[in-house]
Structure formats: structure tokens, C-alpha cells
């Protein structure tokens, strides 16, 4: 594997993490991280959709008319999301019930459309798949971290295995109820971002300029913040 390929794969994990730097896909990161098992399943689902949609969109990138490119991208992404949802309902019934609508909502996850528009439309298939995989891993790193913290402190277990025996079961651990409710994911993600930006000060954002940037419209979609 060439250095460029490795860069494509690893850059989105820490340097340009889709959640921690670009603030994309935060909605699902709140919803599915109550336990590590649901977080892991969601990571696999998002990574699969990212790789498949990046590969498919990249392979026909020269054929897509500019005027309908977003519609074509979202149609393909939606199809892959339905396929993943159906597979989970067939082979991972219990987890899919817990994930409920959030698998279907991958289609609105800005990471997927963001990578399609910003990367797959301009790069060959191989690089696009690696980019999808890298971003999937970047998303997964954050989700697994948040899922582990929330399950460990909210339920005293990891992947269902008891780590800290709870007081109610005769142990010593008093579960933190806050960790079982979605807002706690905000705090954990914020903590991660703080940590990451302390280690890599380059990720700290510059204050917004007072006058609108002349080239703000040409910024790639993946850089826009505040999307779910």
C-alpha cells in the first residue's frame, strides 16, 4: 500500500475526525451509544454504507450530470442504507430492534453525503473506498469510546459483561443514571474533543470572521458544521 493510500485511510481517524473535528454525525452518536453493542453495530453499518456508497459513486462519477448529482448520490446512499437495515433485521434482530430508526437515519448522516460529494466525486474507486473506510473508522473510534464510557459508568458493564458489580446486585458500584440518557454523550464527546485538541492544537478553530468570507460558498460540504 502506498503512502498516499495509508494517508487517505488514517487521516480521517484522528487528524480530520468526522465527529470530533467536523462535527458531523453527532445525532446518531448521541442516540446509539447507551451500550457498546449498539454502538459497534452502528459503526459497522455506517462504515459499510460509507465504503459502498463511496465506491459506487466514484465508479460512475464521470457519468453523473452536475445538475442532479446530489439526488443521484442520496438515492444510492439510501439504497445501501435500506440494504444494511434489512440485513440487520435478518441477521441481528435483537440489536436492530434497539437501533430502531437510527439505522434508517444513516441516510441523513452528513458524513456519508459529505464524503460522497467532497471525495468520491473527484477520486478513483480505490482511494474512495479507503476514504470511506477511514471515515468509518474515525466515526467508529468516537462511537466506541463514547459507548464504552456510557455503558461502563451507566450500567457497570461492557458488551453486557459485568465490570463493576452494581449495588442493586450486591456489589459496590452505583450506576450514573445520567450516562444512560442521551445528553451524556454530548459531555463525553466534548471531553474527547478537548483531549484531541489539547494534543493537536492545530484543530482549534479560529474565531469566525465578522464579515462573511468571500469564498464561503465554495467550501466543501464536509466542512460545514452544525448539521445532524
Amino acid at each position, binding site marked *: 500500500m502506498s503512502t498516499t493510500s495509508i494517508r487517505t485511510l488514517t487521516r480521517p481517524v484522528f487528524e480530520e475526525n468526522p465527529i470530533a473535528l467536523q462535527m458531523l454525525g453527532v445525532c446518531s452518536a448521541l442516540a446509539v451509544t447507551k451500550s457498546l453493542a449498539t454502538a459497534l453495530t452502528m459503526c459497522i453499518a455506517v462504515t459499510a454504507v460509507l465504503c459502498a456508497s463511496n465506491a459506487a459513486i466514484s465508479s460512475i462519477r464521470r457519468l453523473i*450530470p*452536475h*445538475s442532479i448529482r446530489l439526488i*443521484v448520490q442520496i*438515492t444510492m446512499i439510501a439504497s445501501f442504507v435500506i440494504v444494511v437495515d434489512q440485513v440487520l*433485521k*435478518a*441477521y441481528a*434482530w435483537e440489536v436492530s430492534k434497539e437501533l430502531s*430508526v437510527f439505522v434508517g437515519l444513516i441516510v441523513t448522516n452528513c458524513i456519508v453525503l459529505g464524503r460522497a460529494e467532497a471525495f468520491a466525486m473527484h477520486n478513483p474507486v480505490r482511494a474512495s473506498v479507503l476514504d470511506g473506510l477511514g471515515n468509518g473508522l474515525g466515526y467508529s473510534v468516537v462511537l466506541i469510546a463514547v459507548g464504552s464510557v456510557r455503558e461502563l459508568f451507566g450500567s457497570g458493564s461492557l458488551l453486557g459483561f459485568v465490570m463493576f458489580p452494581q449495588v442493586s446486585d450486591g456489589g459496590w458500584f452505583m450506576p450514573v443514571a445520567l450516562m444512560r440518557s442521551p445528553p451524556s454523550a454530548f459531555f463525553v464527546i466534548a471531553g474527547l474533543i478537548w483531549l484531541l485538541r489539547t494534543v493537536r492544537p492545530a484543530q482549534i478553530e479560529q474565531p469566525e470572521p465578522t464579515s462573511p468570507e468571500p469564498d464561503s460558498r465554495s467550501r466543501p460540504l464536509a466542512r460545514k458544521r452544525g448539521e445532524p
Partner: protein
Amino acid sequence: MAKSHVESRTRTLLVAFLVCAVCSVIVSSTSVFLEPRQRANRERDREEKILRIVHGHEGLADLLSGLSGVTLAAHVVDLATGDSADHLDPVSFDPRRAAIDPLLGIALPDNRDPAGIGHRSRFSVVYQVESERRIILVVLPVHGSGYASTMYGYLALGGDLNTVAGLTFFEHGETPGLGGEIEDPDWLESWIGKRVFDEAGKVRIEIVPDVVDLSSSDSIYQVDGLTGATRTCDGVTALLRYWLSDDGFGPYLERVRKSNEEMP
């Protein structure tokens, strides 16, 4: 490649059409291919929920596993008369298909259809737990319209055919987090012990909009509402009242009550 060529109207329409065609083939073939497995999952889920209700009822788990003569069996019941329809096999009988069958189903006129189901089967599959020839638990399949979907569930009544022994929903499309909370175990637990009929035999069970006023004498018929799910809750009340009425399991419950009274 000339840019104008890719951007031409014919080309745009062609690409749009081909993308849609390929995507729909992928989506529909996945769905068709995986359907048997998903159906098996749903079926297993339904059976687990019935067993959980039955086993959760006053130590029945121990009684059913032992040689105490306690049995759990499915029966097809003719809803109009309440009698067993032994010519129909409870395992293969499909009430959903029967509902739209010209011989096995009936269409419900709007004024006789509070649960909003349109059609219903003339027969239903109930589960009975018997001990010494007395029926000590019945599990009734119920369904009706909620806010966004038809909700399918089971209502279990104890041997007095009045006290709720359990309620569960195994299939619905209500909004997760709002109406979807009808699956919340704590809320379903709060149904246990409630009465469905008053002394006069009128169906009284209901979900109240807020919390139940425990000082009221009606509280024995009432369950707390779910936040943000008013129409789902109204749907649950309506479907339970429908299935417990004379249009639903009324005749069947009457027959079981009589046969239990005849037993010493």
C-alpha cells in the same frame, strides 16, 4: 469527454432513470431474499412475548415445567359465539389473512370499528392455561390503529377473566421514543392487576391522559398515559375496549367464565 454532453437533458434523464432502476432492483431483491429470515425473527419474538407473559404470571413458569397437570394450549375460537372452532388448526391458522378472506373475515362498518382495523377475522387464536380443568389464564391477541401504524399485541387475563395478567406489543410502527414506549417494560408492568370490567360488566379499562389519581375509586381501571403519545394511548384504549366488548372476545370470555363456574 465534452462537458455539455454529460449535461444534456437526455443524458440527465437517462442517468436518473438508470440509477433509480439499478437501486430499486438492489433494494427489492434484498428485501425479497431476506424476508423469510425476518419473518422467522418476528415469529420467534412473538412467541417469546407470549411465553414471557405466561411465565411471569404468579409462578406459572414452575407449574408449567413440572408435572402438576397445568397445561398451555392454543385454541381457535369463533368470536361470534365464543365456542372453540376445532376444525381449524391453531398453528397454521393466520388471522391476518383470514381478515380479508370472504368466508373467514368480516368487514367492519365505521360505527362498529372503534379500533380502526377495517376488517377482522371471524376466528381468533387464543392461548389458555388450564389447571384441573379450570382456565386460570387466557392470552388474547389484540390489535388496532395507533398514531402511525397498526399495533399488534397480547392481553392476558387471570382466572377471574377480569384482572390483567399482562399486556405486550410485538409489532407496531409507532414513533420510537414516543408511541414506541408502549414496549416499555415498566409501563407494561403497571397494567398488571388492573381490572378491565366493572361490576356491571361494562368495559372500563383506559389510559388516562396524565397520571392515575390513586385516591379515586376508578384507579383500578386506569393506567398512566405515555408522554407525547396521546394518540397511541387513545388507540391502545380503543383497541382493548373493542376486543373486550361483545364484538370482540366478549362471548368467548362469557363462555370461559361459565365453564369455570361449573367446575367445583
